[in-house]
């Protein structure tokens, strides 16, 4: 891809050419734009054929926690919006300092007034035989991740050479992806540059417990294989099979371009405090530079460098003074933090806390009453505080006795108050290490109107990457906004100042009959609401006015409008109802015929004992439903905030343990309750004995049959937060079980907030409240049951049949079709 940087004739600005489209290059441009957006015309050259992304987040991509889109820092819109020309996938191959031009690999020549080199670093490949075999890779860019993911798909053994930060993150990701991983580390303990022996040992144990093989003190002799990698042989003769070898033994500043151009190069490209190289027209920043004898391979120094560089470019020189670095390992579930110097030297004193049973190890190194280093394992909450004290060179003699217990104790509180801890941080304390955002920047972004976590993430990017600082950002929101975020009822959405309960009460009290009327009378701030409040209002009106309210299709989520479940490719899945999980040859034949006739690529048995037909096109839905209807099947409502399924076991009819006819009761319950709209989806199960094969105790309403009757359970959930049901009561007859179920559903329909499942609803109102209405109040229960059955008399019409007969055809057919070829002909 070749984009010639266009220079309008009128553009007489100096031309800044940036070599490197990575974190340093783009951050430097961001800092420059923040200071003076108009000063330079900017062109960025990148070796990779993609936009600027967060390289340190490649590990979560490998681990499957993020996708590439999640780690993009600046998308194509950023380049366009700021008038930056991007040449991606065509790296700069040479610099001519005399002519002030750069030449790319494809031969593109671009002249510059100022040149910024941000080429980063190259992975170090250990010079052993076999290092060039296919299947031997580094872990540096998105292509490497793609290679690893492809290898992981094939399964098998992987060897990671290098037990440092990057190597362990690669090993973790590959292990999560199902490969059998061996880590080969030359040194006696893992991450020896960041961790002391004790923490390294704890880390090794934790990784081994997760199934990785960790070989320390292991020296690679050769990589073997014919045509592709097959294994790694150690110097002691051990042979480890591998279909993938990842070399993560270190990085070297990428200096070839600068050296060829005759710039002063030591370990890195040598720069002064303003990131200027030996040529005043050429700057350099990031991992490729050497400043004051130091090279850096972590992200934090880069933010400092970019600030100094941008200050220099707009002639407000500040000067870079070097960075103190800290490290966090991004392996989920294993918390490791390290900062500063922990190699005990003269005059250094160690303060150590070990809590073996919790797997916690903390070590703070103090010299002349100042913190010079910290190593934390297992509990890293105070990492930021220690790092802040370290960077500010604070005198800690007064805190010393309590220092190791963390900020909350040292501050005298005793009990940990996370808000106080955040409040005590200085303005330049770093909150988000991934994006280099300080406390001061977060606070100012909140002050400018970012009043939610999402808004903060969207503006200053704090906590938008690995998310480990989310708690800190939330505390800053609470601290900065105080009661403004905390107090007041939670409103339905941004369109109203009323909460769900207020709106429902007013709908009934004022006898409101339509969504526009509710919006008018309750002073909605938007003309026609939003995608949060409209479906809620539609449901509340439907529930309040059974048989009377005209459902507003445009306020339904797509699944409820199309009576099928939208899938990520835009096709739909279709689940016909099978009462109580029972089926028969006619139904199965009809389903099989539909699958073949409409080329459905997948059929799946669901958790609720139904068959789910995938990959049906929107246009084909009515015909599919007609075919299913013909075999006697109706909509399974697998798409709705409605009764989903009644799951059953075979019960007393077949099972030697069965105490009651659980299948028969399940069918009756489903016949009674199908088609009813609810605040959220609703699942029922009936088990024929306490062995509970139908898993009734994680359902919204569960029946467990016993010899003497029926135990009724409510408020269970098998989703993100598993919640076992509460026992509502025990009843003697099947009819009572049905009646209590109807009453419970109606109480939930009338009182829960839209999108609130029974589990959180019961936790909010309390089981006693539910018992008082369903168990202890016979009249109330009977009234609830009667209201439910009345409502059901209007809702048990198969929506599929109506659509199959041609109703609302516009939902399924395109308005027009257009064939470009015919047009041209």
């Amino acid at each position, binding site marked *: 891809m070749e984009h010639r940087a266009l220079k309008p004739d009128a553009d007489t600005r100096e031309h800044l050419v940036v070599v490197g489209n990575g974190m340093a290059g783009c951050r430097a441009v961001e800092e420059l734009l923040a200071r003076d957006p108009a000063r330079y015309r900017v062109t960025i050259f990148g070796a990779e054929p993609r936009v600027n992304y967060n390289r340190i987040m490649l590990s979560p991509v490998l681990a499957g926690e993020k996708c590439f*889109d999640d780690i993009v820092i600046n*998308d194509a*819109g950023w380049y366009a919006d700021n008038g930056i020309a991007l040449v991606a996938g065509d790296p700069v191959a040479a610099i001519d300092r005399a002519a002030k031009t750069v030449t790319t690999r494809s031969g593109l020549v671009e002249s510059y007034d100022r040149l910024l080199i941000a080429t980063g670093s190259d992975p170090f490949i250990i010079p052993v035989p076999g290092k060039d075999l296919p299947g031997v890779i580094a872990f540096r860019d998105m292509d490497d991740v793609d290679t690893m993911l492809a290898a992981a798909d094939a399964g098998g053994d992987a060897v990671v050479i290098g037990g440092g930060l990057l190597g362990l993150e690669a090993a973790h990701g590959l292990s999560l992806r199902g490969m059998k991983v061996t880590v080969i580390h030359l040194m006696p303990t893992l991450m020896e540059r960041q961790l002391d022996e004790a923490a390294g040992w704890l880390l090794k144990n934790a990784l081994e417990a997760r199934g990785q093989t960790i070989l320390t003190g292991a020296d690679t002799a050769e990589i073997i294989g014919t045509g592709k990698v097959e294994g790694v042989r150690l110097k002691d003769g051990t042979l480890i099979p591998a279909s993938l070898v990842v070399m993560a033994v270190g990085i070297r500043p990428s200096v070839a371009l600068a050296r060829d151009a005759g710039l002063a190069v030591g370990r890195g490209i040598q720069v002064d405090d303003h990131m200027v190289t030996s040529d005043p027209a050429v700057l350099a920043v990031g991992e490729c530079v050497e400043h004051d004898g130091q090279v850096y391979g972590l992200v934090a120094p880069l933010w400092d460098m970019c600030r100094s560089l941008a200050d220099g470019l707009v002639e407000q020189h500040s000067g870079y003074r070097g960075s103190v670095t800290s490290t966090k390992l991004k392996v989920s579930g294993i918390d490791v933090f390290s900062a500063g110097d922990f190699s005990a030297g003269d005059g250094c004193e160690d303060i150590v806390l070990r809590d073996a049973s919790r797997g916690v190890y903390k070590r703070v190194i103090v010299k002349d009453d100042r913190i010079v280093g910290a190593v934390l394992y297992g509990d890293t909450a105070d990492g930021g505080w220690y790092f802040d004290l370290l960077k500010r060179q604070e005198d800690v003699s007064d805190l010393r006795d309590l220092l190791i217990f963390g900020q909350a104790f040292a501050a005298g509180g005793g009990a940990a108050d996370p808000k106080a801890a955040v409040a005590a941080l200085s303005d330049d304390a770093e909150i988000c290490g991934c994006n280099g955002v300080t406390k001061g920047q977060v606070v100012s972004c909140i002050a400018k109107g970012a009043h939610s976590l*999402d*808004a903060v*993430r*969207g*503006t200053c990017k704090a906590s938008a990457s690995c998310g480990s600082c989310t708690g800190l950002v939330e505390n800053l929101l609470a601290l900065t906004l105080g009661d403004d975020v905390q107090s007041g009822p939670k409103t339905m959405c941004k369109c109203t100042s009323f909460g769900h309960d207020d709106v429902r009460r007013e709908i009934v009290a004022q006898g409101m009959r339509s969504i526009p009327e509710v919006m008018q009378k309750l002073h909605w701030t*938007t*003309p*026609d*609401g*939003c*995608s949060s409040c*409209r*479906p809620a209002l539609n449901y509340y009106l439907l529930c309040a006015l059974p048989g009377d309210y005209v459902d507003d*299709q*445009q*306020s*339904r*989520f*797509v*699944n409820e*409008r*199309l009576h099928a479940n*939208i899938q*990520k490719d*835009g096709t739909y899945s279709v689940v016909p109802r099978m009462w109580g999980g029972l089926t028969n040859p006619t139904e199965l034949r009809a389903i099989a015929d539909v699958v073949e006739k409409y080329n459905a690529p997948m059929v799946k048995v669901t958790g609720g004992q139904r068959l789910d037909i995938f990959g049906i096109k929107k246009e084909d839905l009515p015909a599919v439903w007609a075919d299913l209807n013909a075999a006697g099947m109706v909509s399974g409502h697998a798409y709705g905030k409605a009764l989903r399924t009644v799951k059953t076991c075979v019960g007393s009819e077949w099972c030697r343990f069965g105490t009651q006819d659980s299948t028969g009761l399940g069918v009756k319950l489903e016949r009674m309750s199908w088609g009813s709209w609810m605040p959220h989806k609703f699942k029922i199960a009936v088990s024929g004995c306490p062995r509970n094969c139908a898993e009734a105790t994680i359902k919204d309403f569960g029946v467990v049959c016993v010899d003497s009757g029926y135990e009724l359970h409510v408020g269970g959930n098998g989703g993100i937060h598993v919640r076992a049901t509460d026992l509502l009561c025990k009843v003697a007859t099947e009819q009572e079980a049905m009646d209590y179920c109807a009453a419970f559903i109606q109480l939930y329909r009338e009182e829960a907030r839209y999108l609130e499942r029974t589990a959180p609803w019961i936790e909010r109102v309390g089981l006693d409240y539910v018992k008082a209405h369903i168990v202890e109040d016979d009249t109330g229960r009977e009234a609830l049951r009667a209201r439910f059955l009345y409502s059901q008399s209007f809702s048990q019409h198969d929506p599929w049949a109506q659509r199959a007969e041609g109703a609302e055809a*516009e939902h399924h057919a*395109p*308005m*027009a*079709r*257009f*064939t*470009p*070829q015919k*047009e041209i002909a």
Partner: protein
Amino acid sequence: MTTTADWLDIGWLDQIPARGSRTVQVEGGDDIAVFRTAEGKVFALLDRCPHKHGRLSQGIVHGGAVACPLHNWRISLATGEALGDDKGCTPTVPVKIDGGRVLICRASTIKAAA
């Protein structure tokens, strides 16, 4: 389909429900989603959310925006830009009403099919 050099006639305005949308199928390309707001304004976008390519035509139309059915991104009908804190843009297709008929830009539609 009636066409001119510049515009494609796709049908009557009242075929599109208020606060709803219809699609124009483009062979070999993404569908075009044609929206009609509560106020009666008509907009057309490529039927593809910039986030994960959800079908915007299936979303809830509110004010001058549509909420994508997949992850609830809000997309401006006028500009195709993601609203709020999300970033991304869906191509727009010029549209006009003439005598109750809805016309969409021929060149943009062909481009969408490319």
